[in-house]
C-alpha cells in the first residue's frame, strides 16, 4: 500500500503533525443527549461555536446548560464549569454527566474570562456563567480562542443581552411548570432555539427538564 519513500518523516510525531488538518467533519461535532439534538442545527455541538442558554431564575436554564454536557462527557470529552459556585453535583449525575470528566472552577475570582480561555487549551466544552454583563472585547477574544482550539463555549446568562456578540445558537427556556405528586416529580419546559444555524422561524421543543429520574426527556 505504501511504497517506500526516500524521505520518511523524522518521527511519528512529525507525521502526526503533517496529517493533522485532515480531520473528518464528524470530529468537528460533539455529541449531545438525544432529547436535545433536535434543538441544535447539526444535532450536536459544533466545535468552535458558542451556545447561550438563558431563562428566568428557577426555570431550568442551569439544568439545560448542564444537560448539554452529558453526551460529550460520557463520550470521553473533558468538560469544565466556570463560575458556577453552586453546581448541583448530584443533579449532574442524575442528568447523566460523567463526573470523572468534569472540572469545576467555582470561584474564578474576577478572572472568569482568563480561566475560560486557559481551559480551552485542554477541555472540549466549557460551561461558563459570567458574573455580570460581559464586555464586548472579552467576548470577542473568547470566541476567537474557542474557534482556534475547536472547543465549545456554553454561556449561562439570565438575559440574552448579557452576552454581547451574536452566538451560533441561543437557547431560552420560555415556559416551565413543575409536576408534583407528593414530591416534585418533573418539570415540563419549553425551550426556544434561535441562531445563525437555524434558518427560518425559531424552533420550540418541549422537554422534561428534568424528568422523573433526573434525566432529560422529550415531552410529547
Amino acid at each position: 500500500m505504501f511504497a517506500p519513500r526516500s524521505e520518511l518523516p523524522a518521527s511519528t510525531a512529525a507525521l502526526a503533525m503533517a496529517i493533522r488538518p485532515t480531520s473528518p467533519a464528524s470530529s468537528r461535532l460533539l455529541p449531545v443527549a438525544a432529547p436535545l439534538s433536535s434543538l441544535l442545527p447539526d444535532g450536536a455541538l459544533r466545535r468552535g461555536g458558542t451556545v447561550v442558554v438563558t431563562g428566568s431564575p428557577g426555570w431550568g436554564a442551569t439544568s439545560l446548560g448542564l444537560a448539554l454536557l452529558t453526551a460529550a462527557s460520557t463520550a470521553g470529552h473533558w468538560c469544565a464549569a466556570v463560575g458556577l459556585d453552586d453546581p448541583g453535583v448530584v443533579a449532574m449525575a442524575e442528568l447523566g454527566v460523567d463526573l470523572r470528566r468534569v472540572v469545576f472552577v467555582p470561584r474564578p475570582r474576577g478572572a472568569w474570562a482568563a480561566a475560560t480561555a486557559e481551559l480551552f487549551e485542554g477541555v472540549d466544552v466549557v460551561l461558563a456563567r459570567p458574573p455580570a454583563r460581559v464586555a464586548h472585547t472579552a467576548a470577542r477574544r473568547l470566541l476567537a480562542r474557542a474557534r482556534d482550539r475547536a472547543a465549545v463555549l456554553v454561556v449561562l446568562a439570565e438575559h440574552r443581552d448579557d452576552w454581547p456578540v451574536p452566538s451560533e445558537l441561543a437557547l431560552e427556556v420560555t415556559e416551565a411548570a413543575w409536576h408534583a405528586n407528593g414530591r416534585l416529580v418533573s418539570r415540563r419546559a419549553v425551550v426556544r432555539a434561535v441562531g445563525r444555524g437555524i434558518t427560518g422561524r425559531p424552533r420550540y421543543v418541549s422537554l422534561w427538564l428534568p424528568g422523573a429520574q433526573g434525566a432529560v426527556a422529550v415531552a410529547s
Partner: protein
Amino acid sequence: MVRLVVLWCPSLSTEGPRGEEPRGFAEVLDAAVELAPFARPVRLGVLAIPSRGPSRFFGGEAAFTEHLKGVVGPLLGGAGRVCVGAAEGLFAAVLAARASVLVAPGSTGSFLAPWSIATLRDPDLAAACQRLGLHTLGRFAGLEEARVLERFGLDAVRRHRVARGVDGELPGLRDYAALRRLDAVRCRDEPTEVQRGFFGERGGADVRAAAAVHRLEQRLGHGAVTVARLGGGRTPDDRAALVPWGSADAVSEGRDHVAPWPGRLPSPSPASIPSRPLHVALLDDHGRRVAVSATGLLSAVPARLEFEAGRPRVVAAHCGPWPMAERWWGVSRRRAHLQVLCDDGLAVLLRAERSRWWLSGIYD
C-alpha cells in the same frame, strides 16, 4: 499474543544511590515514544513496543530495532549497553532482549525452551522443579497443565502458561512501583496525582486537560480547580462534594450514588446547591413562622417565602417534609427537608434545622 520489541538498558535497570537512573530512563522512554507512540515501560530500564506498526513504518523489524538502538545509544553516553529483542508475548520478548535476538515469528516456544526455570521468578517453584530434574522452561512446559495444578497450585499454572508461550504476562514482571516513580519523573511539571480516566488509563486528551488545569491552578491558586466526589448520604449536599483537583479521594467512582440509601430525598435533585448557608423565612397566611414539630409535621400551611435579598415569593405548593434524625450515637442532628414551589415557577429545597429554615437547593 502480541509481538513485542523490548529494549533493555542494563545500566539503568537498578536504582543507584544518586537516583539518576529513573531520570535517565525517562529520557530513553521519551525518545522511544517519539519513534513509536505505543512504547510503554515495563520496569526500570525495560520498555516494550508493539512490533507491528513501527516495523511497517521503518521497513522491517530489524531496521526498526537498529533505528531504535541508534536513537537510544547516544542518550546513554559511552557507558551504557542497549539490548533489543523481539518475540511474542512480554516474557519471551524480555528474554529475547537479554539475549539480544529477534526471535523469528512462530518460534517463541522453541526459543523459551532452553532458558532456566529460575526465569519464572518463583524461587519455591524453581527449587521444586530442580529437585524433580526439570531444569529448563521446556521441560516444565512439557508437564500437563492438570498435573501442574494439582502439584503446584493455581499460581504455578499461570507460570506454566508463560513457560509454554501461551501467555506473556508473568506475574511480577511489571514493576508498578517503579512505573509510578517513573511517571512522577516524566511529568515533573504536572501534578503527580491527577484524575484518572476509565480504568485508570490516561489518553492524550487527559494529559492536555491536566496541563490546562495545572496552568489554571498556577494562576488562581491551589484549590481553585475542583472535581466532584460522590458518596453515600440522604441529601444532595451530603452526597456530593467538590474537592481540589488532584486530591487522593477526588476520583468519583460513579457507582456509589446508585446504591440504595434508605431515607434518601427523592430525585430529581436541585441543579444548584448554595455553597454557603442561606437563611430564608417561611411564613403562613398570617405572617407567622412555619415550624416543623417533633413528629415531623408542619405547624401551618406555608404561604410566603422570603429570602435575605430579593422580593418575597408566594408559595404555590409544597411537598414533604422529610424529617431526618441522624447520628443519635454521636453529634445528634435533626433536620427536615421541604420542597417549595413558588407561583413564578421557582422550586426550592428548604431545610429546617436549629429552628430556622435554610436554602438547601434551587431546582434551576
